[in-house]
């Protein structure tokens, strides 16, 4: 049901690489914040 509703308007292939890149940067930013929290204690 959900897959059908979401697949219908996507006439062209949707590349997922940009989204994987976003998630990778997100993890990196969280890691940087975690480092900042600990590095100066």
């Amino acid at each position: 049901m959900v897959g059908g509703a979401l697949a219908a308007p996507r006439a062209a292939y949707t590349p997922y690489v940009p989204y994987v890149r976003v998630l990778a940067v997100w993890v990196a930013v969280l890691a940087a914040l975690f480092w900042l929290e600990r590095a100066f204690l």
Partner: protein
Amino acid sequence: MHPVDWIVLIGLMSWIVYDGLKRTRHSTELSGYFLANRSIPWWAAGLSVMATQLSAITMIGTTGQGYTDGMRFIQFYFALPLAMVILSVTLVPFFYKSGVYTAYEYLEGRFDAKTRTLTSLLFLISRAMSCGAIISAPAVVLSLVLGWNLTATSLAIGAPAVLYTMFGGVQAVTWTDVKTMALIVVGMVAVIVVAILGLPEGVGVTDGLRMAAAVGRLRTFDFSFDITNQYTFWSGTIAALFLFCSYFGTDQSQVQRYLTARSVDDARQSLLMSAYWKIPLQALVLLLGIAVFIFYVFNKPPLLFSEVADRKLSEGAAAPAYAALNAEFGQAFEERRAGAAALAAGGDAAAFKAGEAKLADVHARARALVAQATDDGAFTDVNYIIPTFILTTLPVGLIGLLLAAIFLAATDSIAGELNSLSTASVIDFYRRWAQPTASDAHYLHVSRFITGFWGLFACGVAVWAAELGSLIEVVNRFGSFFYGSILGVFVLAVAFPKATGNGAFVGLIAGMACVAWAATFTTMAFLWHNVVGAVAVVVVGILVSAIDPARQARAEPGR
């Protein structure tokens, strides 16, 4: 203020407004006025999305929060990149390809006119009130700090926005946002540099960060699962996910930004720009507050950053008690400074932490004195910290630049909201119900008039709201009534083909009722209200749709 600062402030604001007005030649038709003829490059649309979110409340309030509380608030934004990915895959292509002007216009095709109208009406109410709050919050602070009349300050913020939005439409708004973002980032970096340069010989950035860490200012992650606590990792990644999906996916002020993009991919790219940059930008905002905190470890701050509160206590019945507190404050400051110097020289943090605790205690007692003297139990001087630093510490010229950044941060947020209020008013109400067959020129004329109306309304709310103190909080909580529920309607629309208009309509009302119940009878942090609203709308919507006779007769559009 020094004449140079006046020149810089007025010059920058005039240039940016003038440049916005120059765009009017491209805004002579409805599609140009509301959607920029889909000509905006992705990076400009992306910066406009970010600028609409970065108001003067961020420049003044969030930086102040960084000073007093540190990095914890950044957890609120953890879900934003996830929301952008979800929206890029789901709602963005839906809206872009449907050719709509407003997000709610899509709902009529999918459901019915009453669902569209109710959703758009909720948007108008919550956005109009938040417009007033966006003007009021910085206007109150700036009018006190600069000694300006409150109405004049509100107009100084609202009038430029109304002008270039009225005549230039979304193109003026977008390109003004681009310049303002550049000015804001330059301004914030300048403040951090000045704060660091104000540290004494022998104290470097790493020493400052060690001091900040010692008193918890660098603490970012709170993994406790406490539903009453607004700032935890879980509220930031789960509850805020619903808020951001609703805000960036269904709120017209954001949807209109990416509808101006040149293609679906450009629209996606503009959202993903926020996904990359929002958290680092927010980190910069909070680190600015922390840099100012470190500055004031070595340079004595006032006991109360609010000059009005300081004057009230110094001249009133509490003057002797306040004088004693000031003396204690001076002593505690010296102890903390000595402890900081010892820490910077390689010693431990115990003396510094003790000094900080003493200072915090004196400050809390001063705030209690203010509460007693003014009957304002919620008094806080958090919003006066950064404006005070700007006016007393920055060199001439930079003061004008930072004030321009703060005013323009408010102005461009309001401009984006005014433009979206005008769009929804004209497209979802005037064109839909009153005059469905008039010419583009007529709708354009009405749009400009309505923009002016909402601008005046927002300025009026701002001046009135200033008397109500906690209205900002009321507006935020009011918004949380709607965001989750509106998201639920769009989830029903996109993910549940068998959902009907009646199901969505009843679900929306049920969602808001559930949020009202949660707000009244539970201590749930209001971020979680978004989850309650969205889930309630979807569940009730599905159930009502299941028994709705219209279900069999309705065919979804575009299939």
